[in-house]
């Protein structure tokens, strides 16, 4: 009795796997002749895409969650967790972007925030208080670079893959907008904001588990001032992914905050590099 059922199940797995590999193989067949070692063509729907079955996605979600909890410095695991659990939230985000005229432009033009696309020298010459100057200052003070984001691998829709890539690239800009440094407290505050804004399960998980690594005084700061501010602003702010930041470097930071409906931060946690426990 269970044997025919398991046969059906196996047949369904094989079919799904075959469909996915067929899709990939069809794209591959166009590209096989490249005898150079660096492949200009790629598998799947976008560069770096790896087609996966629902079971694989579930296993990946569980595995990456465990790995990220064990070792929070494994950013690739956090990224995989976000991709495998965020399908509904990504659809929601994309629809919000589509309904916003600027967001719609972003979805069409697909800008990327990378060192190669940013003109850092021009940004550093902008006046103080402008968004570009403050972003440049943030990059310098915290010794970060916009190129450190992992590529998207497990999202099976090309537009949603762009949305999550944009979310990752906008994360640093959010730090600037919210005025939060990259220490643990700043990261948790930004995660709370993102969780309220995007609804991505990975953000919610990070928001819930992040505070566990804070000491008592920082926890107090989080729960009394920073936390409620982040949540409130996350809920009422305009969709942060719908802003074409690349065209707004000259705009004043205060202006931008007002446009997005974000209050300035109540306190500025110091930009120390120590990871507090």
């Amino acid at each position, binding site marked *: 009795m269970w044997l025919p059922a398991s046969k059906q199940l196996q047949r369904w797995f094989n079919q799904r796997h075959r469909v996915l590999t067929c899709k990939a193989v*069809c794209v591959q*067949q*166009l*590209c096989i*002749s490249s005898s150079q*070692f660096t492949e200009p063509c790629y598998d799947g729907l976008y560069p770096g895409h*790896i087609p996966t079955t629902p079971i694989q996605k579930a296993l*990946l979600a569980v*595995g990456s969650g465990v790995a990220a909890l064990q070792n929070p410095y*494994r950013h690739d695991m956090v990224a995989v967790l976000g991709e495998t659990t965020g399908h509904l939230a990504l659809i929601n985000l994309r629809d919000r972007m589509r309904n916003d005229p600027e967001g719609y432009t972003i979805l069409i033009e697909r800008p990327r925030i990378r060192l190669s696309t940013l003109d850092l020298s021009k940004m550093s010459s902008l006046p103080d208080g402008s968004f570009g100057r403050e972003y440049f200052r943030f990059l310098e003070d915290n010794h970060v670079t916009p190129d450190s984001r992992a590529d998207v691998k497990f999202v099976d829709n090309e537009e949603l893959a762009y949305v999550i890539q944009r979310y990752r690239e906008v994360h640093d800009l959010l730090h600037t907008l919210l005025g939060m440094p990259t220490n643990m407290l700043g990261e948790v505050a930004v995660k709370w904001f993102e969780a309220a804004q995007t609804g991505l399960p990975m953000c919610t998980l990070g928001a819930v588990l992040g505070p566990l690594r804070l000491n008592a005084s920082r926890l107090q700061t989080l729960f009394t001032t920073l936390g409620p501010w982040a949540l409130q602003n996350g809920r009422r702010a305009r969709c942060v992914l719908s802003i074409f930041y690349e065209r707004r470097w000259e705009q004043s930071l205060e202006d931008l905050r007002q446009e997005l409906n974000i209050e300035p931060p109540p306190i500025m946690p110091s930009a120390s590099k120590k990871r507090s426990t």
Partner: protein
Amino acid sequence: MAVSMRLLVRRLIRLSHRNVAVSRAAVLSRSHCHWEPLFCRSFSDDRNTHFGFETVSEEDKAKRVYKVFENVAQKYDIMNDAMSLGIHRLWKDMLLHAMHPQPGAQLLDVAGGTGDIAFRFLDYVRTQQEQKRRREARSMQLQSWQEISNSYPTIDEGGRQESRAVVCDINKEMLKVGKEKADGKGISAGLSWVVGDAEELPFDDDQFDIYTIAFGIRNVTRIDQALQEALRVLKPGGRFMCLEFSKVTNPVLARIYDAYSFQLIPVLGEVIAGDWKSYQYLVESIRRFPDQEEFKYMIEDAGFYCVQYFNLTGGVVALHSGFKL
């Protein structure tokens, strides 16, 4: 016969895919992907081989396999334990048990990378020597004074050759990891590490008593060449032993194994080693390797005698053995 039918069917499917792809290509106009020579290629005798389920040229395969093992070298042993739930240790122990090396044997472990077989070999041989010495010591206690004094010259005769293990691998990263393991275990005597290609070994003829290749031969581009090299470097009477993933005979186990391979192993690769594609290659390359009987014929074709195979874990792994006579 069944194999050639399968190949034919696969080629027909590939051709039909290509027909669809060709019409699509005309619309897509990918200038950097030349599909016209591709169409002719299937009828020319340009050397193509498989890389997992992909078709690549032979030079490409070697480069891509190198890259795969370069990426996975650091986490190779952890991944082996995770993927096989530790059973790979039992498989390697069975290989040693079947090998039953005697003290003084010279081993060449090809694609030996992190040194698992070589370490086990040295352990085995040393344990045997210990046991022999203990046996001799025990037997001496019952002898008369005359007999003991007669046996003095024969103890520690030193003329006997020490057993030696040479680990040969094409990939320097894997050898590096192996050397670090050896240093950690404190093993240095009787062990050497050589960079070399299984298709073109850097050794003279008739050098080794035992040639092993564990889970490496499916990554070799020209398996027949590797087998001929194995024949060349073995002494007459030497033994060729190969551990490799093979076809599962039991149909129920086969389905479970397939589901496990394709669903779980790449996920483990992504989570533990951060590399999905290398482990996808691993499970695909297992499916592309010939089955037990076909591989046995290939070994016989290379010139080995008394070729036999043993299935381990229901055919998940097969141990092939042959002699150079």
